[in-house]
């Protein structure tokens, strides 16, 4: 009887937070869902979806552009970041300060970094546009790619690599058939950590293209601003973003589960 009572009291510590989550996380998202189906006079409508998916609304063009820029950014980050993480894990695994130097920029406010790069581009007379936006994106998200990659690469059991070498694999084969598959969870988590923020950020593209390049985050920002006040279409865009987030995370979960199975085998 006494035990039942104590368990009840311990559980009770979670109740305030459960209410908090419901109120400030779940309800707001439900409101977005409802808003997507409301017109300006709060009547039910599919107009917002029609506007987003129509050619005139331009929603799909913005989405397409953002996806392309997001993909290119992620790809460049992976191509630059994977060798970094790999070499760090191989030669400098014990050198914490060096690893730290690669992820330190994460802690400097991204607006400060982005505005600094813009000032330099302007001083060098580099025209602001797609090139500068991509540079800023890669510059900003590279640490987010390197960090998860480095964490998985460092934790790979070295005996796997030795086993592969003993069985006659050359260096390239070891890298492609042992290290790369074992670091898959890090790759997937690095990709989501760069891709999702890259398509939905709104300041970087705005600053580094002088508002010429318009991404999904910029579009959501615009629809929810006082001047346009088209919350409906903005809500539809937020829902699209939410779907992308869920899809990305399903991928992350799938690969990490795979990894568990592999390590058991």
């Amino acid at each position, binding site marked *: 009887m006494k035990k039942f009572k104590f368990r009840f009291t311990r*559980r009770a510590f979670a109740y305030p937070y459960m209410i908090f989550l419901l109120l400030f996380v779940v309800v707001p998202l439900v409101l977005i869902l409802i808003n997507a189906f409301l017109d300006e006079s709060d009547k039910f409508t599919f107009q917002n979806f029609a506007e987003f998916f129509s050619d005139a609304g331009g929603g799909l063009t913005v989405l397409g552009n953002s996806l392309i820029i997001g993909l290119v950014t992620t790809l460049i980050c992976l191509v630059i970041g994977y060798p970094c993480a790999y070499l760090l894990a191989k030669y400098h695994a014990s050198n914490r300060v060096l690893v730290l130097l690669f992820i330190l920029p994460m802690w400097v406010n991204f607006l400060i970094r982005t505005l600094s790069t813009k000032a330099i581009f302007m001083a060098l007379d580099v025209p602001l546009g797609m090139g500068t936006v991509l540079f800023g994106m890669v510059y900003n998200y590279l640490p987010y790619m390197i960090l998860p990659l480095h964490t998985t690469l460092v934790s790979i059991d070295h005996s796997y690599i030795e086993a592969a070498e003993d069985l006659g694999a050359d260096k390239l084969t070891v890298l492609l058939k042992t290290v790369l598959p074992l670091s898959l969870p890090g790759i997937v988590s690095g990709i989501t950590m760069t891709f999702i923020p890259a398509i939905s950020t709104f300041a970087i593209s705005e600053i580094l293209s002088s508002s010429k390049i318009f991404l999904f985050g910029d579009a959501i920002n615009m629809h929810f601003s006082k001047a346009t006040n088209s919350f409906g279409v903005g809500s539809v865009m937020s829902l699209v973003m939410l779907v992308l987030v869920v899809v990305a995370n399903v991928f992350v979960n799938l690969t990490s589960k795979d990894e568990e199975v592999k390590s058991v085998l």
Partner: protein
Amino acid sequence: MKKRKLVARICADGYLGLVLALMYLPIFLIIVFSFSGTSRFTFSNGFTFDSYKTLFDPEQNAGLLDALKNTAILAVSASVISTVLGAFSTIGIFALGRRTKKVVLTVNQLPMINSEVVMAVSLMVFFATDFISVIFPQGMTRLIISHVAFCTPYVILSILPRLQRMDPNMYEAALDLGANPFVAMIKVVFPYIMPGIISGFAMAFTLSLDDFIITQFNKGDTGIETLSTYIYEDARVKSLEPFWFAVFSIFFVVMFTLLLLMNIKRTQKEMAK
């Protein structure tokens, strides 16, 4: 064979050095030219401290000081509240039944995986509804709530693994030895999960300090600016003035020294062990 290894090593270090150099070049240039007194990246005025002198000009620094004050208030309150809320909730969540626990932890993940813009606009829409806008007035209250909403999940996820590793017998033993559940919690459970609480607090503090998007959407028209939103409003429209060169340089130097010192100290401690 040895020579080939050496060449590989040199190539590796060269590549790492190149990436680091590119990463730090913009920061380095800002610091160097903060002593030029101009924002044109030339030393046409020679070496001067003019940019730093503007820091003491009350006309220039009023907005910045106000923003710094707001940032500090917001980051401290949000991180303290989310650490306390997170610590108690984790213990509660841990004691929940399997199904409820899974649901709570999944919802708890939403603010972490969700895109910041979506979280920001959803809170904005929520606060704008008639009923809610009366209870939570515009301004600091809304900002603190939204920061607590996105920081607490990180606190919980940094405490939970430690709680899972804790031997449940320790708590039971405390009860058997005559402690009531509350005392057992304070004297046994909390000391054990303390490292998780501290790292959760540090994470919440830095997240809140660094946030831009959620603050930008939820600050309302009360004129509250944090460091991020103030930089955005001021420096985005005009080009970067010498004033900002000085401010950014100070930030870079302070942040890097702090973080490096913290880590070097930690490494030394581990080596001593």
